């Protein structure tokens, strides 16, 4: 067979693949049905059809090489060879129209505003408990409640400066909040790197689309951190506190330090003297005003929290309490992203803002409530069960995909410690066309927008679209076979 003919066959099959793209039962971002592309995606589909298979292969190879060359990798734990892997990147971008985005943005700002008011209240007057809106047990049994900061005022009354809220879309395409990440949400570096990489590999796809830029994130983050400095009269010294190069998100830490120009420090670089925080430099000690910390509360200060922590700074809590340094996020925000509290967030919004939630929750059953517990135990095979204090997609039970043995195991666990579990109906996350080998197939996606709060609240247009690369899988976490996509918010 002559070579050119072989090429033609291949090309036809890709075209056919696109034309026959058939979404499953879940809401699909691109197609309403087999071959029926929504108006939003028509431009992109046309560009895709113009891509020669060799060009596509070459573009993908150069994408991968560029991630590797730039060291955009995460360390694989428990691997003695110290292997580093790239976070898989799917080149087909996810599109969000302006009108959807406006609503999402409003909803996110509303939600994070309410959570900040809640934290101020919980570490202050606790009106929400006194007025009986929220059962005190939900707060008092939360693993990440920090009694050490009760009564402490924080600059601008902001606790969650950096938030990453996970959104999913239900069967009819409605956006819902899956969880709030108010501790150390990660992934924003991929938003920026994915955009940069895609622009280089497939610049032609951007033509004809007015894609909202994401580059301003570094500047916005810096501005947010400057606003919370306890010494407003001087130029604040801001640092990013990382656990260190062995942490899986170390790339992101150094990326953010570079894009804001702040110093990347480890616990051993800092010390406390006279309730002030200093860093050790070649020109002597230098006082630090703001710490964007990417380590958990537990590790922050061995004198206050975990005693064996070698990542933190002894005495840091005292400096925080003395108002000499601001932490972003503040200590104790974990109580706001507890999965049992999650169920009450719409109530919090009503209580603090007098508004209805713009972005709904996923229906949630609390095992700690007797009625819900009964329902959960009767319907385990239909539900997703989540531990309230875990993250990263660990410790989940996905009922319809679980064996009888697993279900019985969870039944025991839930009975033993009901406070630690919630259950939700299985929501088939929306799907998005994804390049699988040489074919374009639907894969499940979610969306994590990033929200910055200082004097004002700003949302980075788009966010990180995570995609479950395994067919049929609903787990998008990077640690469990997830990849990511560039996310385009389109100006209409």
């Amino acid at each position, binding site marked *: 067979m002559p070579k050119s003919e072989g090429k033609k066959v291949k090309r036809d099959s890709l075209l056919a693949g696109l034309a026959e793209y058939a979404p499953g039962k879940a809401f699909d971002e691109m197609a309403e049905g087999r071959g029926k592309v929504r108006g939003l995606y028509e431009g992109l589909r046309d560009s895709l059809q113009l891509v020669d298979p060799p060009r596509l292969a070459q573009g993908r190879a150069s994408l991968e090489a560029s991630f590797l060359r730039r060291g955009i990798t995460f360390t694989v734990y428990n691997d003695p060879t110290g292997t580093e892997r790239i976070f898989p990147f799917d080149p087909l971008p996810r599109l969000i129209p302006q009108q959807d985005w406006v609503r999402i943005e409003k909803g996110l700002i509303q939600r994070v505003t309410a959570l900040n008011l809640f934290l101020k209240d919980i570490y202050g007057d606790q009106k929400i408990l006194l007025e009986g809106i929220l059962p005190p047990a939900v707060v008092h049994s939360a693993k990440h409640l920090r009694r050490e900061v009760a009564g402490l005022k924080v600059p601008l009354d902001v606790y969650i400066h950096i938030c990453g809220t996970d959104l999913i879309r239900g069967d009819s395409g409605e956006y819902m909040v899956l969880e709030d990440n108010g501790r150390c949400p990660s992934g924003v570096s991929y938003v920026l790197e994915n955009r940069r990489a895609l622009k280089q590999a497939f610049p032609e796809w951007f033509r004809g689309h007015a894609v909202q830029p994401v580059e301003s994130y570094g500047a916005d983050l810096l501005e947010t951190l400057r606003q919370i400095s306890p010494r407003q009269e001087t130029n604040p010294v801001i640092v990013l506190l990382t656990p260190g190069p062995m942490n899986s998100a170390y790339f992101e830490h150094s990326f953010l330090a570079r894009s804001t120009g702040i110093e990347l*420090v480890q616990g051993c670089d800092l010390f406390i003297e006279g309730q002030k925080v200093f860093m050790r430099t070649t020109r002597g000690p230098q006082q630090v005003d703001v710490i964007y910390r990417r*380590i958990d509360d537990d590790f922050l200060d061995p004198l206050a929290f975990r005693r064996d922590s070698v990542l933190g700074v002894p005495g840091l809590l005292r400096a925080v309490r003395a108002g000499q340094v601001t932490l972003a996020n503040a200590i104790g925000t974990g109580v706001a992203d507890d999965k049992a509290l999650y169920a009450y967030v719409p109530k919090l919004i009503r209580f603090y803002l007098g508004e209805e939630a713009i972005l709904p929750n996923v229906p949630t059953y609390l095992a700690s409530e007797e009625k819900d517990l009964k329902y959960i135990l009767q319907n385990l095979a239909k539900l997703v069960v989540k531990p309230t204090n875990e993250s990263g997609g660990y410790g989940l039970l996905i009922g319809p995909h679980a064996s009888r043995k697993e279900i019985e195991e969870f039944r025991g666990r839930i009975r033993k410690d009901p406070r630690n579990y919630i259950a939700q109906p299985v929501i088939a996350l929306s799907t998005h066309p994804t390049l699988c080998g040489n074919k374009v197939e639907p894969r499940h996606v979610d969306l994590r927008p990033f929200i910055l709060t200082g004097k004002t609240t700003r949302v980075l247009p788009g966010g990180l679209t995570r995609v479950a690369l395994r067919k049929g899988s609903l787990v998008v976490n990077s640690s469990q076979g997830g990849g990511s996509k560039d996310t385009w918010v389109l100006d209409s």
Partner: protein
Amino acid sequence: MLSRVADGLFWISRYIERAENLARIADVYLQAELDRAAGRKVDWSAILQASGASESFATCGLPVNASTVTSFLTISEENPNSIFACLNRARENARMIRDQITTEMWEELNRAWLELSGSAGKSLRRKGPSEYYRELRRASHLFRGTTASTLPQGDARDFLDLGMYLERADATSRILEAQSLQKDQGDVEERWAALLRSCSARETYRAHHHVPLEATGVLGYLIHDVKFPRSLHYGLVRVGEIASRLAKPEDQVEVEALVLAIRARLTKAPVAEGTGQALAGFLDVWQAELHRLADWMTERIIGGKLELPEVSAWHSQQEQQQQVAERC
């Protein structure tokens, strides 16, 4: 600048320079080994000794020959100072202080690491050691050039340069020492040519010396020349300049005195006697002096020896770094 960052920059530079010079030594003696016709026999144990690797090599129980020694210096896991190990540590340091160097510098170093160490390195070595060592020198030069053209003047540049010149002053002396310790000194002209070549000095030396190669001229060039960038004198003078720039005002007098004392001793190098035990002994003293100078600078300029945690604490540190959950 953070003391930890200064230390990281200093060591990135030292490890790159160390890897480059190991490649120089290994390459030049592999070439010499091919010149059997000249009746010359390479003494590989002398090369181990000059590279400070005799002891760790001895524990491996391998015979001493071209292939065992070069692979020990290049890839061996038993050798904490192999080229691979140096590349790994340079890159590990660079990753740690990634935010302090330019993207171009990082990419150059990361590329070298991807291509020249680990499994990628294996495929390259299949092309032959000479090609591998050439690539390695090139990687080092690319990193230096990228640094010079992208990183602004300032402390970061100074700490990188300090590490480079200090390591080079040490490494060139080890190249000379490897030559001095050779039992079979072989054909004289060829020996001096190889020595110059291993320091990339053959052409520049020729341009200024139109007489046959001989000891005083060649050794004088590699030790005393004030313009040749790999000479001992040149390295020491640059180290002195940078150290005075970085030192605190109260340490100025001391740093200048330290460097001057080493310079004074350098003038007494026994170059007229050619290579041999006298020169080797002198170079040992020189290396010890540089070592003391480096210790002083770590203490006074970088900001104190960074206290390395005990092994057990180091492990728990690694574990904890991994435990910190990042919600992605």
